[in-house]
């Protein structure tokens, strides 16, 4: 089981119950659990949505869209049933924050799902976890069963006549692409998890053609806390236009990797050097991938930036899923770029050409380059390929592959050039295959 670490600078809202045994429903209730949903039933949809809007909560999956606004887009009247879909398909490399939510506080996700359902008028919610989290599904399944047993789920919940809500839980079976909301719906409908063309957006035409709210698990888990503490109080914890706190997973070359809840806008430098204990083994910082592997890299001199959506955008990168990956001086950016693109090539669903072909050509070129067979045109070619993927795919996977690639070349071009001249790091992380040899079994 993942170990929890904490730091005095943390502001615990969504992580308030972590490590306190809140997987047990009685303990969860003792810690103010299922109070917020009862308030939501009393106060009604308008109050819920206004509170969520006032909180300034923005989607924690990566896109950062205001949650209250998303919920308000769902048509009030619909011929087809409405649904809530919780996206727990957390597959962006560097990201493991939802993992700890499901592990320590599954009822918060359940309660949040109910709140979202009440806000939009849905009677059925889905909690969809990534396939690798099947051991967590057991925890969530038990929590759902316990909630049914208490009468918190099902017909006439909390004894309220006519208020019904059901939850179905399941996992995927290993596909990064399914984290994209329309691909998630396809997967849940029992199909290959490839994206849908938008518009129409899920808020209007979603699961089974009905209006659907899709939120990341952390976003949903925040909802009960927001209703309890009030939207304004939550908003004040963060910065302007970036309400509240968020879970940051700090991994890689730091002394104390972990998932920490910090206020929005918290200094990235402090997050790395103080919260996560600084660079491992006293080495020097080289670079930071700030919000999961799709976010453009920052150099060591660029980390004086606040961790919120707007400040990160201003710094030319993204807050993404909050997965901060720290690289020390020993890392070869060529290797790191290769490992990153290998992932996106492997996970491209293959539906649209710029992504399918682009990721493959970049991977092939970088593989040859990495093996010592590079030439001067390669760097420009990789850049050209990535630039031509940007904005040209049905879903954001193409961008997610292109953005880090462009970032590595922009920020570390000289390192690619030096690599061409034969300069190597002392301890390479990936085995180098001589040019012309077939790929190693296992290199995918």
């Amino acid at each position, binding site marked *: 089981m993942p*170990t929890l670490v904490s730091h005095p600078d943390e502001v615990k809202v969504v992580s308030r119950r972590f490590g306190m045994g809140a997987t047990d429903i009685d303990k969860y209730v003792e810690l103010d659990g299922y109070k917020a949903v009862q308030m939501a039933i009393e106060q009604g949809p308008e109050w819920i949505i206004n509170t969520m809007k006032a909180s300034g909560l923005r989607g924690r999956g990566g896109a950062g869209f205001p949650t209250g606004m998303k919920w308000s887009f769902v048509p009030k009247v619909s011929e087809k049933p409405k649904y809530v879909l919780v996206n727990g398909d957390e597959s962006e*490399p560097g990201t493991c924050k939802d993992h700890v939510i499901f592990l320590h506080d599954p009822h918060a996700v359940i309660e949040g799902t109910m709140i979202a359902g009440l806000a939009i008028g849905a009677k059925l919610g889905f909690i969809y976890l990534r396939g690798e989290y099947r051991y967590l599904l057991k925890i969530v399944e038990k929590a759902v069963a316990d909630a049914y047993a208490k009468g918190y789920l099902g017909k006439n919940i909390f004894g309220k006549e006519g208020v019904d809500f059901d939850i179905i839980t399941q996992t995927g079976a290993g596909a990064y692409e399914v984290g994209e909301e329309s691909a998630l719906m396809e997967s849940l*409908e029992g*199909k290959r998890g490839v994206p849908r063309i938008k518009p129409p957006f899920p808020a209007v035409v979603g*699961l089974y053609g009905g209006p659907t709210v899709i939120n990341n698990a952390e976003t949903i888990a925040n909802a009960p806390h927001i209703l309890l503490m009030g939207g304004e109080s939550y908003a004040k914890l963060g910065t302007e236009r970036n309400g509240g706190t968020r879970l940051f997973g700090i991994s890689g070359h730091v002394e104390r*990797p972990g998932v920490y809840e910090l206020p929005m806008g918290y200094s990235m430098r402090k997050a790395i050097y103080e919260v996560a204990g600084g660079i491992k083994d006293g080495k020097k910082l080289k670079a930071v991938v700030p919000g999961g592997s799709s976010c453009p890299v920052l150099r060591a001199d660029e980390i004086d930036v606040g961790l919120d959506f707007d400040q990160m955008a201003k710094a030319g990168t993204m807050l993404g899923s909050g997965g901060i990956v720290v690289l020390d001086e020993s890392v070869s950016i060529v290797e*790191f770029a290769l490992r990153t693109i290998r992932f996106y090539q492997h996970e491209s669903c293959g539906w649209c050409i710029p992504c399918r072909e682009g990721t493959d050509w970049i991977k092939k070129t970088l593989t040859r380059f990495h093996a010592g067979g590079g030439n001067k045109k390669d760097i420009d070619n990789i850049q050209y390929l990535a630039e031509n993927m940007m904005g040209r795919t049905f879903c954001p996977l193409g961008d997610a592959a292109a953005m880090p690639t462009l970032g590595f070349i922009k920020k570390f071009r000289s390192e690619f050039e030096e690599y061409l001249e034969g300069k190597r790091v002392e301890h390479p992380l990936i085995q180098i295959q001589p040019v012309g040899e077939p790929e190693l079994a296992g290199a995918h």
Partner: protein
Amino acid sequence: MSSIANSIFTPETAARFDKLASIYPVKRSALVPMLLYAQDEIGYVSNAAVAEIAERLDLLELDVRNVLSYYSMLRTAPVGKYNVQVCTNISCMLRGGFELLDHCKKTLHIGHKETTADGLFSLEEVECIGACCWAPAVQVNYDFHEDLTPAKMDAVLEDYRAGRGKDVK
């Protein structure tokens, strides 16, 4: 009592499938979960499993195979009793994921997607498994093992070899 006569699955799994087919607004939604449970029981998704699942969900076998081929955790051939899945994605790579993979290859004498002669272990290099802050991490079947070193990995493998390992399904 299963809705299917002569189910190839155990009564428990058959009952679970009956339930799965009934809870979703559209039956087909049960497909991915069913494939996973079928794999849990048989060790892989066999032709017979494809046929029965197709029948249960009123789908063509082709529909089932289409979905089956898409997801990386689903397989159409058996693996070892314990499938050792080593993550080498970025966070794990930075903290020794590749070293761990090489170590497993050497100690188990097998490569990616191969199985030991005694059928006990299979090895697989996998993409991010969502344990980045506890890297390097390995999943054995569905169990996570974190913050590993080659020595700790040996202990993990020894536990499974001796029948002491966790094996959650």
